[in-house]
């Protein structure tokens, strides 16, 4: 951690900022969900800009910016550049900020038609044709996955930043987490289609533990082989439309999921 000093010579606490783009607020809420740690965190860092939690905002630059949400409006294209300019480290939190979010389904549709479905006067609403991850616009120092992010991983990112080290966030698949927990494989035992083999770890294998196949809300892991994996989904009963749908949900704009869903669509 850079040990800046205030003009008086006392060590300065690092500053934290939280920013929202197109999102549901769930990932920034995860910070407020750290009930046991929140007051402790506030002693270690100055929470300088966090509109959902505080009406006091201090001007930047900020040591650590957490960015939630995807870029979907012309105004936000400008705003993310400003956030980058005032942030030493920029960490994206969640599926919207790292992979476009569910709102990236518009990337496959005609946004004018989408607007017309929802709004009687689409001309009142400024929206881009696509929903894009933060990294498509500015350099990002670390991406935290999940829809929503995991509380433990968020604490790890903040702690690692304070300690000046790389966050220990494994990038392997959900399958590892099932094995660690001792959860029976839902595919092997019940033939349930499951995205676990291609999905980034972090949730603790929640869905398989509930007897449900993983639906990929943490996005692709670091070692996916979708062309080999998709036939397994078919074997377990999914048709082409099912496969397209499950790949195009909360991490729609993740490269691996996007490419595989386009391949599938060509088959239709």
């Amino acid at each position, binding site marked *: 951690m850079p040990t800046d000093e205030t003009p008086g010579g006392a060590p300065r606490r690092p500053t934290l900022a939280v920013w929202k783009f197109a*999102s*549901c607020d*769930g990932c920034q809420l995860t910070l407020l*969900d750290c*009930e046991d740690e929140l007051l402790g965190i506030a002693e270690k860092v100055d929470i300088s800009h966090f509109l959902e939690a*505080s009406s006091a905002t201090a001007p930047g630059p900020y040591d650590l910016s957490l960015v939630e949400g995807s870029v979907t409006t012309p105004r936000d294209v400008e705003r993310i550049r400003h956030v980058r300019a005032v942030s030493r480290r920029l960490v994206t939190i969640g599926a919207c900020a790292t992979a476009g979010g*569910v709102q990236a389904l518009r990337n496959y549709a005609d946004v004018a*038609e989408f607007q017309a479905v929802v709004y009687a006067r689409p001309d009142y609403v400024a*929206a881009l044709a696509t929903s894009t991850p933060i990294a498509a616009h500015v350099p990002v120092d670390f991406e935290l996955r999940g829809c929503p992010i995991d509380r433990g991983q968020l604490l790890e990112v903040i702690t690692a930043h304070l300690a000046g080290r790389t966050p220990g966030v494994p990038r392997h698949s959900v399958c590892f987490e099932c094995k660690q927990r001792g959860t029976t494989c839902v595919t092997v035992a019940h033939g349930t289609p499951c995205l676990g083999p291609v999905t980034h770890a972090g949730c603790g294998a929640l*869905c398989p533990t509930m007897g449900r196949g993983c639906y990929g809300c943490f996005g692709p892991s670091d070692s996916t082989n979708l062309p080999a994996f998709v036939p397994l989904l078919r074997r377990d009963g999914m048709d082409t439309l099912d496969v397209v749908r499950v790949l195009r949900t909360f991490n729609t704009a993740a490269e691996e999921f996007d490419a595989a869903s386009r391949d599938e669509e060509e088959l239709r």
Partner: protein
Amino acid sequence: MTHRGSRVLHVGSLSRVEGESALRLNLIGDRVTHARLAIYEPPRFFEALLRGRSYTEPPDITSRICGICPVAYQLSACRAVEDACGVVVDGQLAALRRLLYCGEWIESQTLHIHLLHAPDFLGRDSAIDLARTHRSDVERGLRLKQAGNTILELLGGRAIHPVNVRLGGFHRVPTVAELRPLAETLLRARDDAAQTVRWVAGFEFPDAECDHDLLALSEPGTYAIESGTPTVMPAPRTAGPRPDGNRAPPTRTFALPTFGDHVVEHQVPHSTALHSRLDGRRHLTGSLARYAISGRWLSPLALQAALDAGLADPRQAAVCRNPFRSIIVRAVEVLYAVDEALRLIASYEPPLRPAVPVPPRPGTGHGATEAPRGLLYHRYTLDARGTVTDAVLVPPTAQNQGAIEEDLRRQVQDRLDAGDPTDAALTALCERVIRNHDPCISCSAHFLDLTVDRAGPAR
């Protein structure tokens, strides 16, 4: 300082609300002509992107509308799709859904009370700031919030966007033994919730009234949460002269499938949220409406706490219409939700299967539940294969927008009539008036910029 001339007041973003919005006040002299809540949260087009999805997907997809009330979305969606498919989920599965919803009420209402709203009453910027002077109160709030999250995590897998909800019930239901430690956590939480009611009842409340029609679900015998019939309590101004303005006028109900005939959405240029009106009139959903309409069905413990806190007695048809006191109603609802969760756990018997089958069929279904912020309505139309062909979502904050704007107009006017407030005082007032209704901006499409246009001569 004089404010008699023409001028513009512009305030940055409104904080301690969920989402992004702005406020524009138009003043001519010392008269408020317009108060507009401008929601600029980027639109995400959920109603459009749901088209073409499988009928099994709306619970998970719509939960992503709001990280603060995902269960409300999941369960309104389940009810609507199940209605379209002609399936009723009852018995212990319905009880488990109510238990899950109690978790969200405890978490979300406690978040608003302690982290977003209480700082207004105690002159602080945030709960973290508040903790410097009221540490034990903030810690109690965090503990209570955590108890709500414990229910969500146990039943749903996680607190934000739970994974265990499905059409027809759940993927997995808990054993009796799994719920036992939860009951122990909730016994402590019940003491914390009762203390919270006493804490907020001691705040200072400005005199204020609102004359909106009130809309909430009702279900005789219970405080409606996860099901009920839309019920309207008209504003006193329309109910004719009464000796006591705080007496509840008679209520009326309408069938859920006619929701769209009664609550009509329209778009306004200043907002990406659609406004709506109830039978052509301004209405309010949420805690004040629920307490007025369902308050007599609170548990004895919650009702006694409400009366001890100085709230009107709903059994005597008395109504609390002071939006600032909504924080007390929320605290009572948290106490109720803890009490109710304990009751549900005590009478829990694991159902034979975790979900009832919900086969698709063509048709339209309607679902409504009481999100922490108010009535949330979903409607889906399915084709024979179970593909969603049309979706309509009417969130509480979009419904409340008109009422919030009227509260703003009225409160600012009262303040102007009482003296010559500074722009800073007006801004603080406006933010409080908005937070009274715990708006969920991401839901309604959409943080606050305040612009005051002061124009024209003094009257």
